[in-house]
């Protein structure tokens, strides 16, 4: 399968990428690892006229820590996120989630900024960011802004990112030693989650239970009011209306959400 023809422009800096976005608008797409975009282009589900390659920009890659947060460059690859000692120490759920994406080859190419911008509701990193209460740094013609994960994911493959904006970094609170759990239910080893659950410090996020990664608000509230993990998990699917496909119908997804939430609240991984 061959993508439709496009013009390829390697960006020289993030400022250059923003200029190019301003110039080409909706006709352009940003390319980093390309592991969400290129498959869509090969299927002609996406046919951008211009690809702006930010994959080689050093300024957008790497992990650092400030007083409160880990700051992860948008083009940091999943394999590097999973292997980062800093991430493993300060936000282990995120390192674990990065190691669950696809397979080794995919993790060598895919980037955190790309995965979040793609906003697949079944994907690992969007759910992890919601569970961790993280946020994304966005730059655009009007300057930079910080958007919380809960506000960033707005619909099915839809985010708060404007066509002239660039996701430059991801912020995750530093919380070493805080217990967490992560559950991803799949039928084949490198599939997307049929349902996923990430839980850390009273926050619970669900994958593939709606058009975006969702907070399991009712279960969180039950926990906050002193319910046991098992009792709180019974509310994990409250208010959700997950889609149906060949893998699972709605009721089965809700069942999975409850079971996987109980496991995640017991700090299990799997």
């Amino acid at each position, binding site marked *: 399968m061959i993508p*439709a023809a496009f013009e390829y422009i390697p960006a020289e800096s993030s400022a250059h990428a923003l200029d190019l976005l301003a110039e080409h608008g909706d006709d352009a797409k940003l390319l980093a690892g*390309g592991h969400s975009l*290129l498959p869509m282009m090969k299927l002609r589900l996406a046919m951008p006229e211009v690809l702006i390659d930010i994959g080689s920009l050093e300024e957008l890659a790497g992990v650092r820590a400030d007083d409160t947060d880990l700051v992860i460059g948008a083009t940091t690859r999943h394999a590097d996120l999973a292997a980062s000692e800093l991430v493993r120490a300060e936000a282990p759920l995120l390192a674990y989630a990065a190691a669950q994406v696809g397979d*080794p080859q995919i993790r060598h*190419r895919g980037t955190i900024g790309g995965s979040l911008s793609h906003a697949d509701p079944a994907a690992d990193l969007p759910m992890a960011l919601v569970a961790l209460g993280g946020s994304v740094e966005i730059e655009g013609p009007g300057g930079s802004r910080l958007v919380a994960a809960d506000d960033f994911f707005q619909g099915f493959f839809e985010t708060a990112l404007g066509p002239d904006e660039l996701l430059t970094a991801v912020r995750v609170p530093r919380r070493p030693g805080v217990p967490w759990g992560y559950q991803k239910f799949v039928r084949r080893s490198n599939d997307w989650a049929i349902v996923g659950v990430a839980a850390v410090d009273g926050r619970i996020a669900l994958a593939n239970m709606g058009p975006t990664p969702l907070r399991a608000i009712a279960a969180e509230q039950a926990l906050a009011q002193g319910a046991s993990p098992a009792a709180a998990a019974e509310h994990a699917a409250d208010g959700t209306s997950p889609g149906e496909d060949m893998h699972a119908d709605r009721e089965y997804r809700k069942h999975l959400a409850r079971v996987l939430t109980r496991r995640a609240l017991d700090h299990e991984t799997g």
Partner: protein
Amino acid sequence: MTRIELTVNGEKRSDEVEPRLLLVHYLREVCGLRAANVGCDTTSCGACTVLLDGRSVKSCTVLAVQAAGHDVLTAEGLSAGGELHPVQAAFRQSHGLQCGFCTPGMVMATVGLLAENPHPTEEEVRAGLEGNLCRCTGYHNIVQAVLAAAEANTEVSA
């Protein structure tokens, strides 16, 4: 057309390519290197696995222009002076193949895996090759071959 300069199997190359040309097609059709196979063409099967700067990637989901300035290694580039690479030798010795279609990808994924983890457990081998499918389901001998190659690594470095 875009000019790309890169290294393929140790050889510096400079070619004019269409930006939409996939790396696997560049390797097969422009460079004449046919080891990397197009299997599923959807980033699933791993038959097109090559190393990009030493890390395994699926070349059906990389544009040739993205490899510009980088170092590509295919199965053709593994053996030196007519000697099989230790991973190739281990696949032959353990009969880590049936029809052979997945083999170049399996071998390259293994070279990448052993570079990251020279002494994997069997479980780590299976997880490390989860991006490579063998439709003959010949996984048992493939895993044995990878473990044998890791063992050979130990003997060399000991």
